């Protein structure tokens, strides 16, 4: 018995040891050390390709750290051992420098590494000066790229719309940067003249992109019937818009279409942007450029839901508020273009939602929440100074300036073609008389559409109050938030907007003291900027459903089959905040939409009557047969497919070394042939006693 135990113990020990020692790594991969980072990839529109791609086998370059601008000169003036891979900190990642690197050609510069050392960074925006210029109103006044005073992103370099002949890899982690710098110091950073003669630390980046030329070409090739290999070249950018209403709409019972279309419902459309953009895959939170707007929309939704009386007691009982968050707006307004396209065709909401279609006649006006970089400088934009715009402006200002609430804000107005790049552009392009009003602040975001538009850019600190965020608070109760904190700014702006809408809907001035709850903003930003495993997302999910990942949800629109995290969470949050609690319905009966069971703030679970839903955010360009890709009518953005992103460093031998190895190999090959020939021709000497090989078999016997 004891022996058996001993044997078992030995076996166990061997197994454990084996598990610890065993490695699946191939010998040829042992010379590499991998580097974790994010890659720049290729996007295409109807006419161009933008972004980066490596060569098919992976691009290799010798590491060279750029500390000051002068370091670039070494690489650009016939470097000794090309190609090189400059490691550039963000403050030197400028349009001018990048264009010089492109000009140097892939023979000299094969890879560019962006290292996360933002100490000297003053600005970092690679969007155009006029975002979405070609899908906005075609008017010189709307945006002038050459004039920083009237452009909507004065700090933009437009690099997001350039085509790079080399891969760009972003390395965020300090440890990885140290690894690279150490390797550079040890092997490369001395005696530059002898670079060609010695082994150098090099990086290999693999990010090969399948698509090329333009969306027209890659979509044609993907749909192509002769495509024997079945390769997919690119996918259209595609996501989901999320919408919800303050009051539940009637469920359609009969199928008669006439009744459906002519409803007397009147909607106030409140909208904002759901997505953001950046140069690198999976990085970029869009904190200031679109998350602030989404936070305000969420707060306004929560406020109106709780402040408004039942629909039947409104002066006009057919009035409602439709909240829509548009996805893919960063790429030529994908979501709003599709929304307009659907509404024109009586296809919004989609048939499966079983609600009457909404037409443009049903939309009373649109209030679009744009980028609110600086809340002291908010303007109400409209194409012309209609009575509607004047009235709303006056209402907004009456609450913004009211001593009763002490918001102390002044909302200015601008009634001209100088309209910010927001979703309303899609509506105004269809019909310039569409009553669209846009709340937008003077551009102040130096990190618009970049990886640095993050927690620090909006100066957010999580208070983690663990208090009920759904309740409305008295205006004097700030829950300890400082007046200049992000939470309070969002509270103030959203309260003003909600009060103005309240007055519009009820026809009465808002006289209550309840305003938005800064704790809701606190929780909202925590979820979207720091961790999806958060109280707000938990409350808006089914009780006991899997927790969110401990990282912020991805907010890039992505493609079909992409993560769609941001729209999923927004759907739940809007669903939760814009629904009515149904205390009488037990959990078991709360299974069929519009009834939905939420965990709620305390996690106890509550049945609620919901109104939220998705609508497709796929550009109509991909629905229309024989769409003219050059027409510019709809967004044509696609994303190339790729098989992997990887980066690794290794010691690249000098070219002398490589040539020697190859020559030795060729010599050995030739020698081996000669040797085999000699041996074979003298085989009788070596194998004296053996008969010749062809004599080994006896001849077949005749039958």
């Amino acid at each position, binding site marked *: 018995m004891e022996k058996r135990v001993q044997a078992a113990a030995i076996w166990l020990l061997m197994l454990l040891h084996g598990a610890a020692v065993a490695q699946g790594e191939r010998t040829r991969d042992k010379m590499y050390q991998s580097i974790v980072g994010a890659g720049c990839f290729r996007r295409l529109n109807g006419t161009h390709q933008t972004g980066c791609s490596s060569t098919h086998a992976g691009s290799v370059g010798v590491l060279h750290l750029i500390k000051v601008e002068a370091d670039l000169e070494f690489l650009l003036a016939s470097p000794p051992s090309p190609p090189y891979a400059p490691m550039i900190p963000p403050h030197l990642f400028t349009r001018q420098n990048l264009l010089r690197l492109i000009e140097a050609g892939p023979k000299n510069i094969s890879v560019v590494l962006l290292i996360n050392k933002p100490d000297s960074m003053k600005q970092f925006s690679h969007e155009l000066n006029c975002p979405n210029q070609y899908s906005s109103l075609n008017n010189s006044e709307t945006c002038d790229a050459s004039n920083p005073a009237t452009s909507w992103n004065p700090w933009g370099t437009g690099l997001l719309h350039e085509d790079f002949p080399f891969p760009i890899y972003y390395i965020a982690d300090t440890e990885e940067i140290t690894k690279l710098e150490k390797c550079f110091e040890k092997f490369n950073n001395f005696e530059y003249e002898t670079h060609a003669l010695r082994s150098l630390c090099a990086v290999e980046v693999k990010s090969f992109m399948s698509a090329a030329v333009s969306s027209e*070409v890659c979509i*044609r*090739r993907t749909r192509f019937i002769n495509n024997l*290999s079945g390769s997919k070249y690119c996918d259209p950018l595609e996501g989901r818009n999320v919408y919800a209403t303050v009051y539940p709409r009637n469920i359609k019972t009969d199928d008669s279409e006439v009744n459906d279309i002519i409803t007397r419902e009147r909607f106030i459309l409140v909208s904002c942007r759901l997505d953001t953009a950046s140069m690198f895959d999976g990085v970029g939170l869009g904190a200031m450029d679109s998350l602030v707007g989404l936070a305000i929309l969420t707060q306004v939704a929560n406020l109106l839901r709780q402040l408004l009386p039942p629909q039947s007691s409104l002066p006009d009982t057919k009035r409602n508020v439709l909240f829509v968050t548009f996805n893919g707006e960063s790429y030529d307004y994908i979501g709003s273009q599709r929304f307009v396209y659907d509404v024109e065709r009586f296809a919004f909401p989609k048939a499966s939602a079983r609600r009457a279609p909404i037409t443009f006649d049903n939309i009373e006006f649109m209030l679009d929440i744009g980028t609110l970089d600086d809340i002291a400088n908010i303007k109400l934009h409209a194409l012309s100074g209609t009575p509607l715009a004047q009235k709303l402006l006056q209402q907004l200002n009456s609450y913004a300036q009211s001593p009763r609430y002490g918001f102390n804000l002044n909302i200015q107005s601008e009634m001209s073609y100088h309209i910010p790049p927001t979703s309303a552009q899609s509506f105004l392009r269809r019909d310039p008389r569409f009553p669209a009003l846009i709340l937008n602040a003077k551009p102040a975001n130096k990190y618009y559409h970049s990886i640095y538009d993050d927690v620090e850019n909006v100066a957010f600190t999580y208070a983690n109050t663990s208090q009920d965020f759904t309740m409305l608070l008295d205006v004097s109760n700030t829950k300890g938030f400082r007046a200049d904190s992000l939470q309070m700014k969002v509270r103030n702006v959203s309260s003003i907007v909600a009060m103005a809408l309240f007055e519009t809907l009820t026809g009465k001035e808002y006289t209550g003291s309840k305003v938005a709850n800064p704790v809701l903003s606190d929780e909202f930003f925590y979820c979207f900027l720091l961790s999806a495993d958060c109280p707000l997302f938990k409350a808006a999910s089914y009780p006991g459903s899997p927790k969110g990942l401990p990282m912020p949800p991805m907010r890039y629109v992505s493609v079909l089959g992409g993560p769609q995290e941001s729209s999923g969470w927004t759907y739940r949050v809007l669903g939760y905040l814009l629904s009515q609690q149904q205390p009488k319905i037990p959990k078991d009966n709360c299974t069929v939409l519009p009834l939905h069971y939420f965990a709620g703030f305390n996690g106890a679970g509550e049945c609620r009557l919901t109104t939220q839903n998705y609508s497709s955010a796929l550009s109509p360009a991909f629905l229309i047969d024989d769409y003219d890709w050059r027409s510019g009518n709809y967004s044509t953005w696609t994303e190339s497919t790729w098989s992997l992103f990887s980066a690794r460093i290794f010691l690249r031998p000098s070219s002398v070394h490589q040539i020697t190895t190859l020559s030795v190999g060729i010599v050995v090959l030739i020698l081996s042939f000669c040797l085999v020939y000699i041996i074979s021709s003298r085989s009788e000497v070596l194998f004296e006693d053996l008969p010749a090989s062809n004599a080994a078999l006896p001849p077949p016997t005749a039958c």
Partner: protein
Amino acid sequence: MDFSKAPNSRKLQLCRTYFYAGFALLPFVWAINVCWCFEEAFRKPPFPEQSQIKRFVIYSAVGTLLWLVAIIAWIITFQTNRTSWGATADYMSFMIPLGSA
């Protein structure tokens, strides 16, 4: 089968069949014919059917050559113009390169 061992009439018949088969847009059949019958047509001591075989071999060789010239010309034209022809060239292709025009 071992061609050299076949009777001369059979050789002629095969050579003729291959020559005619080549007209079905099969230049490789002509090329095979040239290789296969070359010995019989030009190297072997004369026999009655040899002159006819010789003729078929020469015709097949000319056909092969014409095809070769035509195909090389087409390949050069197609490869140099593929990107500028755009969609038309794509519809002619079975394999489209990844990551380039």
